[in-house]
């Protein structure tokens, strides 16, 4: 991995956090300062405090326990290695979440590329009817629950719904993580909810 690529994963450089310093207590600051000096137990304390939302977002985006755990661990490792770039006036959890998100998007891009190549190969082998039938069966199963319906949405919809509804973040915080204006988050939330509603509709009819 090149330095330029590494830098692109770090939100403190690529995405400026737009949260204001409102003078609230900064519970992570002491641990961050200690971790910067090489205190591993202070960093362990930081990981403990934010591991759930970081892992949760990874799982929501990647839809695989093993991959989510791997990527979340990687995100924490990068956070530790780049603590000197972190501005402790900003929320630590959002900084790590932004790193984890970038790593997830990288994996999804790679995954999409591999799948496109696989599908091209499969088209030559499988009859078209079988594939459609299988897809229909999968879709039917997925519509059975809200979680399932959520999982069928595109990644950009899943991430805003996860951050807003599951993690209860504000649109301003989400905008800081994703690197867009807060108004854009409102629009994306609306579109995501609409897609989710449509996905859930067959369940209600059946």
């Amino acid at each position, binding site marked *: 991995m090149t330095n330029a690529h590494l830098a692109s994963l770090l939100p403190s450089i690529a995405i400026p956090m737009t949260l204001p310093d409102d003078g609230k207590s900064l519970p992570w600051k002491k641990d961050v300062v200690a971790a910067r000096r*090489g*205190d*591993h*137990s202070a*960093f*362990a304390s930081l*990981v*403990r405090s934010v*591991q*759930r*939302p970081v*892992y*949760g*977002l990874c*799982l929501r985006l990647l839809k695989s*326990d093993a991959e989510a*755990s791997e990527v*979340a*661990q*990687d995100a*924490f*490792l990068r956070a*530790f*290695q780049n*603590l*000197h770039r972190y501005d402790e006036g900003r929320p630590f959890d959002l900084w790590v979440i932004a790193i984890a998100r970038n790593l997830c998007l990288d994996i999804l891009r790679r995954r999409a590329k591999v799948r496109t190549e696989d599908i091209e190969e499969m088209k030559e082998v499988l009859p078209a009817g079988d594939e459609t039938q299988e897809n229909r069966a999968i879709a039917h199963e997925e519509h059975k629950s*809200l*979680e399932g319906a*959520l999982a069928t949405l595109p990644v950009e919809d899943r991430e805003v*719904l996860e951050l807003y*509804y*599951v*993690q*209860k973040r504000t649109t301003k915080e989400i905008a800081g993580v994703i690197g867009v204006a807060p108004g854009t988050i*409102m*629009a994306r939330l*609306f579109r995501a*909810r*609409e897609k*989710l*509603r449509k996905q*859930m509709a067959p369940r209600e009819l059946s």
Partner: protein
Amino acid sequence: MSTTQCPELELLFNELSAGSGVSLEHAKSCERCTEILNEHRELERELFRLSDPFPPSTFLHQVMARVAAHPVSAYREVKVGLAIMFGAFTLALGALVMGGGIGRMGILAASAVVHSQTLAVGLNSAISTLWAAAALPMLVSLALVLFAALFALKRLMAGAPQFSEVKISS
């Protein structure tokens, strides 16, 4: 039943989040909009009920094992140190040039070269006198300085504490 035209859904939901607006007023008297709003509220209620799962129980230990296996590179610290040194040097040079001290510094340097022989002779004489008067204390002092320097260097090279030294409570 409302006689005005039904608003865009996005506008309606935004006004619902804000708590007031013309579209919300319209919805109060429109059956269709009320139904949409109820459906929207129900979906939001369900969404807010979702929660993140806990990571595997070994997660923290795995993270810390990775952290211990990939210490922060000394290269970065050297780079930062060099940058600070270079910055300080540039500032000092700038101050000298701005204050017209370059000429004075040249005179001082030339004077140091001229008087270096006297300095060397004086230093040699001082060491000889010290050696003759207190050889043992001088040797002990030198040994202590050397030991302290080596110990500090060793600590510096060892870097952060190892993973085995870190206590992690779950």
